[in-house]
């Protein structure tokens, strides 16, 4: 029976935990590339546990595809864990920096001060000729601010990848314990196989 359902692509957040090894990012992105899947954003940093890195990857695809992609990532040696989350299951933020020319700063109807207050943004730096504004939030929020600031002349704009934590409660430390157990079981089966040759 084929239960293949045609589904609409949706946004997924993939989190991957890996050992600290050269080339991991490459090996993870290859899984996306092979499926002709675009990565919308990607952030990596060391996790709460030293020596374990966390990748947060946002992509858009169908549910059946994200499942397969995550399975293939988790299969990679040195990947400890790969999961995907629906939008409701993650708490995520992105940081955006806007470099604005000071030339038009006072010529607009709405004052810069009002905009900064309204968007809960802040001024990071003031230099001769430009200011730098910082805003943390959802992509739609940083994008809205982008539109507001556009008339002032945005000299540069940079938005980070998604920084996310997940709602489901299984934490990495618990999972590491499960992995250690799995490795022990695996070894037992391996030894059984080595001694039980037909």
């Amino acid at each position: 029976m084929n239960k293949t359902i045609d589904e609409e692509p949706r946004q997924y957040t993939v989190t991957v935990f890996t050992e600290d090894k050269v080339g991991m990012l490459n090996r993870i992105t290859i899984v996306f590339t092979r499926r002709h899947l675009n990565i919308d954003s990607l952030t990596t940093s060391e996790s709460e546990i030293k020596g374990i890195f966390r990748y947060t990857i946002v992509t858009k695809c169908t549910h059946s595809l994200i499942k397969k992609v995550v399975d293939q990532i988790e299969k990679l040696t040195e990947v400890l864990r790969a999961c995907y989350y629906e939008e409701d299951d993650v708490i995520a933020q992105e940081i955006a920096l806007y470099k604005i020319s000071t030339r038009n700063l006072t010529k607009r109807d709405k004052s810069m001060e009002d905009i900064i207050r309204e968007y809960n943004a802040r001024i990071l730096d003031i230099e001769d000729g430009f200011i730098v504004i910082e805003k943390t939030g959802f992509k739609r929020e940083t994008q809205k601010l982008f539109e507001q600031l556009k008339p002032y002349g945005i000299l540069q704009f940079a938005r980070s990848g998604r920084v996310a934590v997940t709602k489901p409660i299984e934490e990495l430390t618990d999972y590491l314990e499960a992995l250690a157990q799995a490795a022990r079981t695996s070894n037992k089966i391996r030894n059984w196989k080595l001694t039980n040759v037909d």
Partner: protein
Amino acid sequence: MGKILGSQAVVKSLLEEGLDTVFGYPGGAVIPLYDSLFDYINEGKIRHVLARHEQAAAHEAQAYAQITGKVGVCIVTSGPGATNAITGIANANMDSVPMVVITGQVGSTFLGTDAFQETDVFGLSMPIAKWSCQITRPGDIADSFAKAFYIAVSGRPGVVVIEITKDALTHETEFHYKKAPVLRSYAPYPEIDQENIAAAAEMINNAKRPLALIGHGVLIARAEKAVREMLEKAGIPFGMTLMGLTALPSDHPLCIGMLGMHGSYASNKLTNEADLIIAIGMRFSDRVTGRLSGYAKKAKVLHIEIDKSEIDKNVETDLAVHADLKTALSYLTPMLEKKSNKQWRAEFDKFYKMEYEQVIRHDTQPGEGIIQPGEPVDIISRKTKGEAIVVTDVGQNQMVAARYYKFKTPNTFLTSGGLGTMGFGLPAAVGAAVAQSQKPVILFTGDGGFQMNEQELGTIIQEHLPVKIVILNNSVLGMVRQWQTMFNGGRHSATNLINPDFVTLAAAYGIKARKVADRAGLDPAIDEMLDLDGPYLLDIEVDKDMKVMPFIAPGSTVDEVKLC
């Protein structure tokens, strides 16, 4: 213990893993490694098989691994040595064969500078290997090798590529080796879930028309006996994938033939009549399933598989047992009810008869006209009593060998399944002959594929290997031509070959050879080939218009399989 050179650490690592045979080709970046091998080779502690091309060296190591059950080891230099080996790496990995490929690399201070013979092998191999690593310090050699061998051979096996910079080989290090290190990110043998096994047993016990699909995983898990017991107890008819052939004897009463595109008529016709598909150590390749939307429509699917990412990848399962096969069956088989499913098994016979009348008889015993490629396969199958090691290239030669050789013993068939690499045959036959000398090694190849790695005739004479080469010579690229005939209105674009005289070519290497173009000459030539204690090349002129049938046309479903 004192310090040793990095290159010596590599050799010691190989010895720690119990390896006595390596395949390879030296070059600038691995000269230090070959220097450390020198004494071991001279003292007969390590056999080094010098291929004539790195791709061939990799295929040879793969075949050696499949026949011996050990990890195949292949040593190549940096740059072109490594890129030449890429096809062999991809091929072995696609077919889940354990192999460790050691490639040289420029000195670590030259990395990334486009130095002479520098290629990013580490990066290049990532998408086609189970694991890759780059060693830049001699102190990392022991740990990396222990990890590499463990990863290559455990779970679903595959290829590990180790790139070593030249300075890591020439500097000194301490050496402590610990085999099969525990890795927290890698648990190749999953825990058995008893409830899951019970559910699988119930599914099988409730089935009225079960069909088992036997894949390469059965051979890899060394579960041939366990699978046989299971199938015989529950009376389950089974088909074998191309890579799963030999897991059980071809003439087993429950065997309904090979699966897939050129598999048996019966297995394809009745896949869609089964009420339960039990996939055992196989991955539902597109060559097995045909069009997925019309695959196994009336069946529930039970998938027993060690690689979790294969479960639900191509065919959605109703129940999956994620486990080592042998372990899983040790729990599953006792829970199965004894059955014979005689009536269901008998349904396959009708289709076999149709296939025999319309395809098999003509393929193997046409009696007149130009020799059919199936004829020598059939004769050799009978003369060797199904006990030879059969190697194929890719294409029509591969399919007729797979279809008409009657296998008796596990792991006696070597072919390029997943990647479909033309040129695989001759080097694989070399590897098989290096691996053992009890069984004759018989290569069925086409004239096209043979010429893709024919330089390995040199390896055959240097290593004194009694490889029997059967060229099913139709002077065309037969399989592509068949498709052109069937789907491109007979426009045979770029599939004609002007060939050399293969007998003269063999003679240049001092290999005995004979050309046969008439049926009467076939039998004596085959006798001469099999009786000779040494390599032999038999060039047989066969029908270029022969089509491999049955055939599931691309885009068709399994039950749309055609006989002509």
